């Protein structure tokens, strides 16, 4: 009798736990949907008065006069991100190749630990370092050297600090996909008399290309949505006039308009729309990166 009771109890426990875990899991999926739908719903107020084309392609953002053009902010975001990736991609690719192909095992493991620690550093800390070092550097050394007048709070500085911020993610992911390649690839190529660099260039880079591309896309997504460090150094001007003048990115626009956001409903709707755009673009990049990476995994059956 007791045994039967115990069995029932175990069965009930099993049902309760599996049901609650199922609910939890679907709640996580629903969360993503809710974020999306709520942002859509709450930004619709903006489109009752402005057309979507006007918002996306006009360049004046002046909430007080009722102008909500996002094109210069969107361009600013892409300018900062592309600039940072242009600096980060070659540097992190070469570093990852060195660590993967040349560095001894011990150096690689020490460096991986170092990179993992750095990946956890909060973005405001990067912002502080940018304010203390990069802003004076750009305004006092680089600006005069290039012959431009700049305060240092500019698009270029933001790109510079973003490049440093994405190093950990791009390097560790590229390293991972290079290490994933079978050793036979290297052996075959080296035995044909190729030098190590030729092996890398003609064999390994091609074989690991999907993984490397996905690493860079993830870095791009990270840089695109990065808020605090950029908002601290970009200067906050809603127009894109040049690399060495102040600008604005989509996340920094949201943060910098925080105070006004409470009072004007239509500006609130416009900023929610910016967040929605951000979500769509970054998620697009992340999903693309994942699809490309899966191709690498399939190719080498890992």
């Amino acid at each position, binding site marked *: 009798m007791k045994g039967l009771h115990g069995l029932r109890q175990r069965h009930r426990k099993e049902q309760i736990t599996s049901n609650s875990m199922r609910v939890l899991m679907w709640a996580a999926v629903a969360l993503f949907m809710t974020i999306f739908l709520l942002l859509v719903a709450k930004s619709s107020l903006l489109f009752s008065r402005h057309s979507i084309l006007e918002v996306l392609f006009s360049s004046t953002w002046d909430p007080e006069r009722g102008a909500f053009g996002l094109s210069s902010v969107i361009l600013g975001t892409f300018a900062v991100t592309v600039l940072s990736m242009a600096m980060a991609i070659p540097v992190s690719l070469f*570093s990852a190749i060195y*660590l993967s192909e040349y560095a001894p095992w011990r150096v690689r493991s020490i460096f991986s630990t170092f990179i993992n620690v750095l990946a956890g550093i909060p973005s405001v800390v990067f912002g502080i370092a940018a304010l203390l*070092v990069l802003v004076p550097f750009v305004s006092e050394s680089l600006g005069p050297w290039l012959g431009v007048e700049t305060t240092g709070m500019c698009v270029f500085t933001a790109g510079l600090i973003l490049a440093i911020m994405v190093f950990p993610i791009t390097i560790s992911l590229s390293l991972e996909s290079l290490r994933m390649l079978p050793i036979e690839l290297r052996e075959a190529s080296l035995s044909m008399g190729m030098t190590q660099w030729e092996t890398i260039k003609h064999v390994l880079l091609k074989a690991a290309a999907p993984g490397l591309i996905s690493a860079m896309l993830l870095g791009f997504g990270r840089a695109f*949505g990065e808020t605090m460090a950029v908002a601290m150094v970009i200067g906050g001007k809603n127009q894109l006039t040049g690399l060495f003048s102040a600008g604005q990115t989509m*996340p920094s626009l949201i*943060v910098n308009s925080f105070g006004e956001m409470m009072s004007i409903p239509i500006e609130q709707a416009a900023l929610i729309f910016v967040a929605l755009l951000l979500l769509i673009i970054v998620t697009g990049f992340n999903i693309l990166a994942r699809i490309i990476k899966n191709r690498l995994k399939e190719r080498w059956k890992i």
Partner: protein
Amino acid sequence: MNRRYLTEKIYKALMLGCLAIVIGSLFMVIGITFWHGGTVLLEKPDIVITPPGPRYLLGGEGGFLHATLGSIYMVLPATICAAIMAMGIALYLQSDYSSERIAESIRTVLDALWGTPSIVYGIFVFTILVYIHQRASLFAGIIALTLLELPIITRYTDEAIQMVPRQLKESTYSMGSTRWETAKVVARYALPGATAGVLIGLGRGIGDAASVIFTSGAGSTMPSGLFSTATALPVMIFQQANSCYPSVREQAYAAACVLILVVFTLNVTSRLVTRYLSRYVPRGR
């Protein structure tokens, strides 16, 4: 022949140069924070636990206890909530409960959520607050941080659980255990990896400003209850780093130094805890 060797040498030098740039710039970030924040902290270590004075943001007296406490009050509950939910979701993603196809698509969703910029979470919770006519509060901050940490911790726990050998599960099932009883054994085996995930989530939560600034408020008052405003260390750093009062700026540097120290400590703790918990796992990890 010579030219090929020369190319090899040039590229190797180029790679070393790139590596030097990476290491140098990252050390620059840490070094400059320690240099500026560390000197302030060594001089006045008590600012971490001193409440702000009345004219604090104008260069007046006081420290940033409000932000320190706000961070702790927000991050700890958020991490605990997220960790419990993450364990449930990660267990449910295993083949005992879900089909492979559903699990894969949910992993994709979780990865997308992981990559979502934290400011989107901030705006999301802020929008809900506006919708239900509530003001920014500590509670809303906790929710935003939970949302931010949940996908991270879930993915780490999921990866750890996937490492559990099939034989372990099979042997528990062969003893007649239910799925839940097996899950408990599996969870214990995955504990080191899951704990590392929780600590990484904690580190991410404690360093994030964008999700908190809209949801928990950004004043310089001490947190006084679950439904009153509070502020966190990163938000305080963000607001004060550009202040025109040197003493206010210095406090931001000190807070940044505290944040870095917390992140490093979490990293070391994660290693130690992982090693300690690995005693449940045969042959270490």
